[in-house]
């Protein structure tokens, strides 16, 4: 028996990338599709995400952005301390909050914080940031093996799938233990390429295969949408160039040095 899951990270209102992703998935005989939260932020027309997710039968969990919007909180709970990052985070949160319908906010409030699955004896845990905290940043270069092992054991999981940081990565820690950051659909991952990423996870008996799938979508049309909605030029630049221009303070040294700003 082979089980194949499509795992989507934060969509950040990038409805064009989500549309392209869902049609890519259609051609790949996938058993289920999951989205790990942070539906809004950054991009235009937040309400366009939800019908797409619902039509494709995507099972969703809550991210910190969704938790904030559903709870009527004042910010996105990303915990920025840099005043410039905070300035842009506020613009993005205000826009998303004002343009998300109450019905979708309530729906986000009903979503689980994590999902546990068991496939061929592998215990999977799907979460947003980490199993212990919804908004914890777990980066490749600041998460040593022993720490990931601790998080997995504490959560009684063999495979953890998370998003939240915006950059995909996968590490096999022991023969059974995997940590997978599935990437995000919302914005490119700070490498100068305009595509975004999702993840295919295939389990067949003892075998676990992780494939990161690049999604090329009409990013210029998205930039045009963003212009129409008067979203900041800095956000548009990221979509058009593939380099992050804001929210940089959260990046550890190596991830930051790989970027342009």
């Amino acid at each position, binding site marked *: 028996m082979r089980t194949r899951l499509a795992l989507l990270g934060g969509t950040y209102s990038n409805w064009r990338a989500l549309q392209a992703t869902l049609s890519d998935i259609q051609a790949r005989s996938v058993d289920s599709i999951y989205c790990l939260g942070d539906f809004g932020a950054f991009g235009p027309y937040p309400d366009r995400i939800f019908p797409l997710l619902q039509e494709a039968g995507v099972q969703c969990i809550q991210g*910190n952005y969704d*938790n904030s919007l559903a709870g009527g909180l004042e910010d996105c*709970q990303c*915990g920025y*301390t*840099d*005043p*410039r990052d905070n300035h842009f985070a506020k613009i993005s949160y205000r826009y998303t909050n004002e343009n998300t319908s109450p019905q979708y906010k309530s729906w986000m409030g009903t979503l689980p*914080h*994590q999902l546990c699955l068991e496939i061929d004896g592998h215990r999977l845990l799907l*979460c947003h940031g980490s*199993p*212990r*905290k*919804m*908004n*914890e*940043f777990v*980066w490749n*270069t*600041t*998460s*040593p093996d*022993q*720490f990931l*092992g*601790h998080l997995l054991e*504490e959560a009684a999981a063999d495979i953890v799938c998370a998003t939240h940081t915006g950059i995909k990565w996968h590490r096999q820690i022991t023969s059974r233990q995997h940590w997978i950051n599935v990437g995000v659909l919302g914005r490119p991952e700070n490498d100068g390429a305009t595509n975004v990423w999702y993840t295919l996870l295939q389990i067949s008996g003892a075998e676990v295969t992780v494939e990161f799938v690049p999604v090329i979508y009409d990013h210029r049309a998205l930039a045009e949408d963003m212009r129409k909605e008067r979203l900041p030029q800095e956000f548009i630049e990221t979509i058009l160039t593939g380099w992050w221009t804001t929210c940089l*303070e*959260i*990046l*550890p*040294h*190596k*991830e*930051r*040095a790989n970027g342009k*700003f």
Partner: protein
Amino acid sequence: MTIHSSSNHPRVKLKHLDHLWFQVTGTLCNLACTHCFNSSGPGVRTFDFLSRETIALELQQAVRLGVREVFFTGGEPFLHKELIEILALSLQQAPTTVLTNGTLINDRLAQQLAEIEKTSRYSLEIRISLDGYTAEMNDRLRGPGVFDKVLEATARLARRGLLPLVTVVRTWPESEELRIIAGFMNALQQSGYNRPRIKILPSLPLGRELTRIENGHHEILLTEEMLRGFDRDLLMCSNSRIVTSHGIWVCPLLVEEPDARLGTSTKDMQPDYELRHRACHTCYQYGTFCQNVSASVEGMPNIE
């Protein structure tokens, strides 16, 4: 000393050793900054150096406990002759941060740091303190000539692909924050550090800084009531410990407080600690400021 015996002070348990700190050069420093929170300085031997062997043993123990990140502080860590070897050893096991005043980072050291960073799969963070964006502002607190040396060091590191995290203690009203940060950005860029990373820290009512600000400030201590509904994971004592030449302490801020000593090594990480110092209130007020921003776990309730 701000020890109080009231039983109303909250107790916090070590939930998991996320962060292990080493006071690698004790309180020995080549500078004597007026706001130093642990009163380090030239000839100050309240705490002594840690040997490479001690560090290796403690690291081994911490790895078994699932440690997430390792931090080296002092005093001035680069006064330790084996610091590069120690950082390289730590980087094999965990992401590593060194907190330095930057004045000793010459071309040779910058090159060595770049080399160990490049060969490690984990991030090396070099945190350099700076307290003003002009020589006049900075050197008033940190000593004459320090500003120029720090700017030279950041440029040296930047030329080799390293992006040090420049930490600045907030000594201005919030309304001036943007203007002042722009001042730091400009000064760093003009000296050759093109993509400056800046982290603002709160001033700590401890050590020499306590004496400096004492007048006009009254004591604020934590109570159980204040922690009701507060996420205790934000407090360092719930996730960190520090190794010094005199044993293991509950957190890097409290190394001058005898009651914050827990034992001789990481084996003695006491399960909980009573928060009865002013620094505990600072930690409560400002959250995870001792960590690098990238590692912060802020704001949200735990997932049950």
